[in-house]
C-alpha cells in the first residue's frame, strides 16, 4: 500500500518525472512543463472529468484516460500529445461548440473566455456538427449575476463552488445527458433561490454562462449628464486587481492611476472606500469596546462589511443577528456621506450627486438597495455599484492609456486612508484593523506590534488571541461561506452550555481570500493569485504614513466638523443599519 509520502517514478512524453503518490497526471505534467489542455478543471476545485479535454494515453491501457483525475502509477509511460490525441481533443471542442451560441463578439467574456481560447488554440475553422443550441432563457433576476444557460458547457464549476465552497446550494444541475442545464432547484428564478449574489459562480465559470449584471451604461448616461455631479469610490481590493486587465503583474497597487482614470472618464470627484473602511473601524471598534467592557453585552461581535455574508446570515443563521455589528459597510458609509457631509461642504444639491462605487463584488449591487437604511441621506446613498471587471471595460472603452496615466490623489475629504483601511480587502484585514484601534481605545496607545499575523493567510478558519490591557481577546476569521458554520457552531455550543463566549470578535468574508478573491474581480482566480493581491494590500499598509484608522486626520475632521462622535446620534443615523430574518427554503 502506497502512502502519500511515497515517491512514484513515471515518464511523460519520455521525460522522467517523480511525484508523490496520489498526484494526478495533470499535476505531474505541469511539474515537468508539459502542457495538457483543460477546460472543466479549476485549481480551486475537485476534478469532475466533465469535458474530456485532458485525455492522455498510458502505455498498456486501451482507453484514453483523463489526466485531471487519473493518479500517476509506478512506471507509467504517459503520452500527452500525438495526432490521435489531438484529433480526439478537436472533436471534444467541436461537440461543445455545436451546443454553444456563436455570439462571441457581444459576449461578456469576449477575449477572456476559456472556451474561446481553446478554440483559438486548436485553430478550428469550421464545426462539422449541426448546431443544437438549446432554447433556454436568461435569468437576470438577481440584478447582480446573470445566468445564460445556453452558454453553459456543463463543466459543473459553478455548482461545486455554490454547493461545496459557499454552502449556498442556489445552483444545481437539472435534467441529464444532452438536456443537462444549470438552474436553481426546480427551475425557479435565481432571485427566489438562496443565492447570496457572491458571484463566485461567475468568477469560476469558464465561459459567459454566468457574468456580472452590467451597469456600465447607467454610469455613462450619468457621466454625460451635465447637471449631475458624479463621484466615484474605489474599494480596497480593486486597486491590486485592476492592473490584471492591463497587463500589470498580479498584485500591483494602482490606486493613483485608477483615481486618474476615473477623472479622465468624467467623474467630478474621486473618493476612496478605504476612507469608509477607516470610518467603519472607528464605529465598529467603539461598538466592540462597549460590548467587551460591559459584562452583560452579547459577544462575540461579528463583522458585517460583506453583503453576501449578511444575506447568508439573514437567510440561514438569523439567531446570530444580535451578534452582528450594526455598522454599515465602508461603501455604504461613503455613499451616505457623499450626499450629506460632502454635498454640504461643497455646496452641492445632494439630489444631483450620483455615487458610483467600484467594488470587487457582485453582491454590492444588491447591498445598495437591501434596506431602507441604504437611503439614509434622503436619497439612495450609492446609486450604482460596478465590479472591477466593469471598470476595466469602461477604462478600455474610454481609450485611456491606463499604464501611461499619471498617478493622482483622491479628493481627501472622503478619500484619505490609512493602512488599516486598505487591508479590508483581504481576509483577516478587518479584524486586524479593528484590533489595532480597539487596542488604542482600551489602552490609549497604539499596539506595540501593529501587525497581527494570526489574522493573515488563506486558511479557511483562522483563530487567535491577543492580550489588551490585561484582558484576553479571542478572535476568529472565516472566509468562504462553507467555513462559517464551524465558527458559528462553536459560538452556539458555548452559548448553550452557558460558558464564556468562544470568541469575542469574528470576521467573516463570503469569498475565499476575502475581497481580493471577490466575485467581481478579474478572471482566473487561484490561491496563488489571491495571495499576490493580498500582498499588494499589505505593502500598501506598510508604506502608509498612518496604519491605524483612528490616526486618519480626515476621519477626525469628519467627526469634528459633522458627525460629532462615534456611535453618536448622527453616526447612528448615517452609518448604522439593522438586520432581519429572511427565511428561504432549506438549502
Amino acid at each position, binding site marked *: 500500500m502506497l502512502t502519500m509520502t511515497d515517491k512514484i517514478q513515471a515518464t511523460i512524453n519520455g521525460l522522467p518525472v517523480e511525484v508523490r503518490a496520489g498526484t494526478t497526471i495533470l499535476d505531474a505534467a505541469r511539474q515537468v512543463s508539459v502542457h495538457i489542455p483543460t477546460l472543466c478543471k479549476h485549481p480551486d476545485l475537485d476534478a469532475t472529468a466533465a469535458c474530456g479535454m485532458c485525455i492522455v494515453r498510458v502505455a498498456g491501457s486501451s482507453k484514453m484516460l483523463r489526466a485531471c483525475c487519473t493518479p500517476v502509477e509506478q512506471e507509467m509511460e504517459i503520452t500527452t500529445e500525438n495526432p490521435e490525441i489531438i484529433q480526439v481533443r478537436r472533436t471534444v471542442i467541436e461537440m461543445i461548440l455545436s451546443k454553444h451560441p456563436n455570439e462571441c463578439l457581444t459576449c461578456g467574456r469576449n477575449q477572456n473566455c476559456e472556451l474561446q481560447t481553446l478554440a483559438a488554440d486548436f485553430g478550428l475553422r469550421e464545426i462539422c456538427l449541426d448546431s443544437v443550441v438549446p432554447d433556454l432563457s436568461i435569468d437576470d433576476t438577481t440584478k447582480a449575476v446573470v445566468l445564460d444557460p445556453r452558454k453553459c458547457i456543463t463543466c459543473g464549476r459553478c455548482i461545486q463552488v455554490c454547493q461545496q465552497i459557499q454552502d449556498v*446550494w442556489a445552483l*444545481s444541475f437539472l*435534467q441529464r445527458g444532452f438536456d443537462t442545464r444549470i438552474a*436553481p*432547484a*426546480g427551475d425557479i428564478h435565481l432571485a427566489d433561490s438562496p443565492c447570496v449574489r457572491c458571484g463566485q459562480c461567475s468568477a469560476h465559470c469558464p465561459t459567459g454562462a454566468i457574468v456580472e449584471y452590467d451597469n456600465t451604461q447607467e454610469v455613462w448616461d450619468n457621466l454625460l449628464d451635465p447637471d449631475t455631479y458624479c463621484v466615484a469610490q474605489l474599494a480596497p481590493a480593486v486597486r491590486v486587481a485592476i492592473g490584471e486587465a492591463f497587463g500589470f503583474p498580479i498584485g500591483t497597487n494602482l490606486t493613483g492611476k485608477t483615481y486618474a482614470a476615473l477623472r479622465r472618464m468624467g467623474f467630478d470627484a474621486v473618493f476612496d472606500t478605504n476612507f469608509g473602511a477607516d470610518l467603519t473601524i472607528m464605529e465598529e471598534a467603539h461598538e466592540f469596546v462597549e460590548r467587551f467592557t460591559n459584562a452583560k453585552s452579547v459577544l462575540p461581535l461579528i463583522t458585517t462589511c460583506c453583503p453576501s455574508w449578511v444575506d447568508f446570515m439573514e437567510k440561514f443563521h438569523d439567531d446570530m443577528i444580535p451578534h452582528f455589528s450594526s455598522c454599515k459597510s465602508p461603501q455604504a458609509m461613503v455613499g451616505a456621506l457623499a450626499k450629506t457631509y460632502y454635498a454640504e461642504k461643497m455646496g452641492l444639491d445632494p439630489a444631483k450627486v450620483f455615487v458610483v462605487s467600484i467594488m470587487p463584488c457582485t453582491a454590492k449591487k444588491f447591498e445598495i438597495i437591501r434596506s431602507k437604511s441604504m437611503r439614509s441621506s434622503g436619497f439612495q446613498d450609492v446609486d450604482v455599484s460596478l465590479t472591477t471587471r466593469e471598470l476595466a471595460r469602461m477604462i478600455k472603452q474610454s481609450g485611456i492609456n491606463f499604464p501611461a496615466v499619471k498617478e493622482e490623489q483622491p479628493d481627501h475629504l472622503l478619500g484619505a486612508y490609512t493602512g488599516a483601511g486598505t487591508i479590508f480587502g483581504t481576509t483577516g484585514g478587518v479584524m486586524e484593523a479593528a484590533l489595532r484601534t480597539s487596542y488604542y481605545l482600551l489602552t490609549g496607545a497604539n499596539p506595540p506590534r501593529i501587525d497581527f499575523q494570526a489574522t493573515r493567510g488563506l486558511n479557511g478558519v483562522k483563530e487567535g488571541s491577543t492580550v489588551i490591557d490585561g484582558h484576553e481577546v479571542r478572535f476568529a476569521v472565516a472566509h468562504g461561506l462553507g467555513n462559517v458554520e464551524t465558527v458559528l457552531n462553536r459560538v452556539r455550543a458555548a452559548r448553550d452550555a452557558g460558558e464564556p463566549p468562544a470568541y469575542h470578535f469574528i470576521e467573516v468574508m463570503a469569498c475565499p481570500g476575502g475581497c481580493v478573491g471577490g466575485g467581481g474581480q478579474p478572471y482566473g482566480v487561484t490561491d496563488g493569485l489571491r495571495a499576490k493581491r493580498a500582498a499588494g494590500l499589505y505593502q500598501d499598509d506598510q508604506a502608509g504614513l498612518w496604519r491605524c484608522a483612528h490616526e486618519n486626520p480626515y476621519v477626525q475632521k469628519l467627526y469634528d466638523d459633522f458627525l460629532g462622535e462615534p456611535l453618536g446620534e448622527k453616526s447612528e443615523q448615517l452609518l448604522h443599519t439593522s438586520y432581519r430574518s429572511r427565511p428561504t427554503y*432549506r438549502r
Partner: protein
Amino acid sequence: MGPTKTEDDVAAIAKRWKNKRGSLIMALHGLQDRYGYVPREAAMSLGEAMDVPLARIYEVLTFYNYFRLEAPGKHVVSVCMGTACYLKGAPQLLDDASARLGIRPGETSPDGEYHLQVVRCVGCCGLAPVVTVNGKLLAKVTAETLEASMTPAGAPSRAGTSAAGGAPGTAGTPAAAGAAESQRA
C-alpha cells in the same frame, strides 16, 4: 398552527428513510406514490426532514424521468422507450400518442384527462413494444391498440393513486428508477 396534512405525510416518509444512506430516491418514490407526483411543498418538507438540500432533491427528481413534478392527468399513458421497445417502434407510438392527445411527453392535456410520459424499460422486453395505461400493461402495442386504449371506454380505470405510471414487474419500484441511472449520457 400545527403541522399540515402534507407535513404529516412527508414526516412519515422521511422518518422511514432518514439516516439510511442513499435512500433519497426511495423517499421520493414514497412522495410520488402518495401524491401521484412530487409537489414542490412536499419536496421542501422532505428536504427539511431528511436534511437534504432542495437543490440536490431536484437534481435527483429531474435526473430520473420516472419522477413527475406536476399533477398527472386522470389517465397516465406511459410509453416505454427502453432499448427493445425502441427498436420495436416505440418512437412512432409516442409520436402517435402525442398527436392523438395534443401534448408532448411529460405534459398533461388541458382538460386534465391524460398525462403522457416516457419510461425506460418496465422489465418485460419480450412483450415489446410496451405501453402502460394507468398501470395496466399493454403488450406488443400497435397504432390501433394504442388508439383504442385512449378512448374513454378503452382506458383502464386507475387502481388508486399509487399505481400511477406503475406497471407489473419492476416498473414503479425504486429498481426501475435505478435502472434509469445507468443510462446517464
